[in-house]
């Protein structure tokens, strides 16, 4: 089943001064259960594309559909709520609320969704256990390592039960061990719970673990290939 579909997506930054064509007629589909890496040199438009798909920014031309809903034309407040209910985000940094503990960060998004307190508590515990932070629930982000923080971010992204999770260079600030550990967790969620992940990266070891690799060059899709991550 197709979750994400873009139609001739174009994005021009600063159209009136120094126009930057960040995306040129990008058409891409993401199906349920995918584990897809977006690769490409710096400036190739990975972040821009993820922002469009995630409804954080509006395309200059073209459309983005999430489960058939055109997110690209939604009103701002509606888009925020749509993101809350349907999309999980993991950013490169500034993911967590610094004054909240790991558990509170995970619980927060479910509170925004207006879920039942009991359910929130149970789910928070389960998710933090899943990402291997069952013993760091009450730690604040500053007390956690970079890898641990990203794992909390993944737990939070999952907490809202989104249709898919977008992660923009989630391992960029992590050492190899932490990066592989994060990938292990994401992969396991994908395999066992059929969670859809789309993440950008320029780290070859991360790319190797994806099942679909989309390569971007100059704001356009250059290659789109399926690979067997277990072959290496």
């Amino acid at each position, binding site marked *: 089943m197709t979750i994400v579909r873009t139609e001739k997506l174009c994005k021009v930054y600063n159209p009136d001064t120094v126009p930057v064509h960040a995306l040129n007629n990008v058409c891409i589909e993401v199906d349920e259960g995918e584990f897809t890496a977006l690769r490409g040199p710096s400036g190739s438009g990975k*972040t821009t594309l993820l922002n469009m798909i995630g409804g954080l920014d509006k395309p200059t031309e073209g459309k983005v559909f999430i489960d058939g809903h055109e997110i690209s034309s939604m009103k*701002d*407040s509606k888009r*925020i709520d749509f993101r809350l209910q349907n999309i999980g985000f993991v950013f490169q940094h*500034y993911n967590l*609320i610094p004054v*909240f503990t790991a558990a509170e960060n995970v619980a927060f*998004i479910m509170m925004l*969704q207006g879920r039942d307190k009991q359910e929130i508590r149970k789910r928070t515990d389960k998710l933090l256990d899943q990402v291997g932070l069952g013993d760091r629930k009450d730690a604040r982000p500053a007390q956690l390592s970079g890898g641990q923080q990203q794992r909390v971010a993944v737990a939070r992204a999952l907490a809202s039960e989104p249709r898919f999770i977008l992660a923009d260079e989630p391992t960029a600030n992590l050492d190899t061990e932490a990066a592989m550990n994060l990938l292990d967790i994401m992969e396991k969620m994908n395999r066992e719970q059929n969670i859809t992940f789309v993440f950008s990266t320029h780290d070859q070891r991360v790319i190797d673990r994806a099942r679909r690799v989309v390569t971007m060059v100059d704001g356009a899709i250059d290659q789109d290939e399926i690979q067997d991550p277990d072959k290496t």
Partner: protein
Amino acid sequence: MKTLLTLSWRNIWRHPARSSVLLAAVIAGLWAGVVTVGLVNGLMQQRIDYLIESEITHAQVHHPEFQAEGYSWLYIPDHAEIVEWLENDERVVSFTSRTITDGMLQSPIKTSGVRIRGIDMPSETRTTNFHDNLVAGEYLDSDIRNAIVIGERLADEHNMELGNRVVLTFEDVDNELTSASFNIVGLFRSASTDYDERNVFVRADELNALLSDTPVHHEIGIMLTDETRAAEVVDALNSEFSGIRAQTWRQLSPELSMLVELGGVMVVLITLIIMLALAFGILNTMLMALFERMREIGMLLSIGMSRRRVFGMIMLEAGILTIAGAAAGMILATLSIQYFSDRGLNLEMFAEGAAQIGFDHIIYPTLSVAEYITILAVVVMITLLASLYPAFKGIRINPLEAARDA
């Protein structure tokens, strides 16, 4: 939403120093507002009380033209009937008749224009407390003939001491120039040096002997049970008697009425300045706190926190600080007012200037409950208004802030 409250509360503690500054600004604003209003109130009230109790009284009766002209022949007609009326009115606590004329005071050194006030000792001391202003010698209960009490300041200017003689020259009721020599028995110092230079006191009967064959009276000063009844008593007198003019203290001293209004304007101005400073301080601090958290707020918007809730979060932060600051400021301000209203605030350093325009140098601030509440409301409103701008800025943050590369 409890989570939002927790979030705001913890955000406040994120930068204790900065939050303290904000808190201190609210406390200081409230305190300064209350103390300023209290002081101005106290200053005005003391000035009014002083003038009423030492001279003006609650109401006065004159010949309609006396105040403008100052001639001794413009005396009060039907004085005896008015006295009888006053004696039988239960609103009147006491009254005193004065014989007054403008004239010249002459010493070997120089001549000064003065208002000569002939007073009736027993009734005057019952009605006013001007006698408290005596600083040297004795009051007019002296045995010495043609006694005069003059301002300490006037005595200095004339190089005169107690026991010296001065000559008073004035026109009597028949327009004839009259002179007589008077003995200085006492010196006074009122709250106004200006007043001290222009007024001298003699006995009414001795002045009357020089002015006219039959005693004349130019002014009746009346103290009432209640200041607020002045207008009705004055109206009654004016309709009862013709050829006179009765006036309340407000009418008698437009200067005093103006002072009351000026006090009001000053209070508004000073509070406005304090509040403006407060608003800018809060605006600045809140904006600083906001700019530091652009990416975090971008992240919150990205993951789906509504702009309404972001707005609420920022306003809650301001609200908590405002409530805490207002409470602390209110306690501090009330204690300060209480302390100073007991002991008085000594403004000795500025007393020189204050005395010139007739103010005491020890001020007892006063504040009504309504004024407390008004200032509290203004401070809370200003703080919340000043937080509105950062809050509106906060909700216009682009969620992309979170996704931006470092």
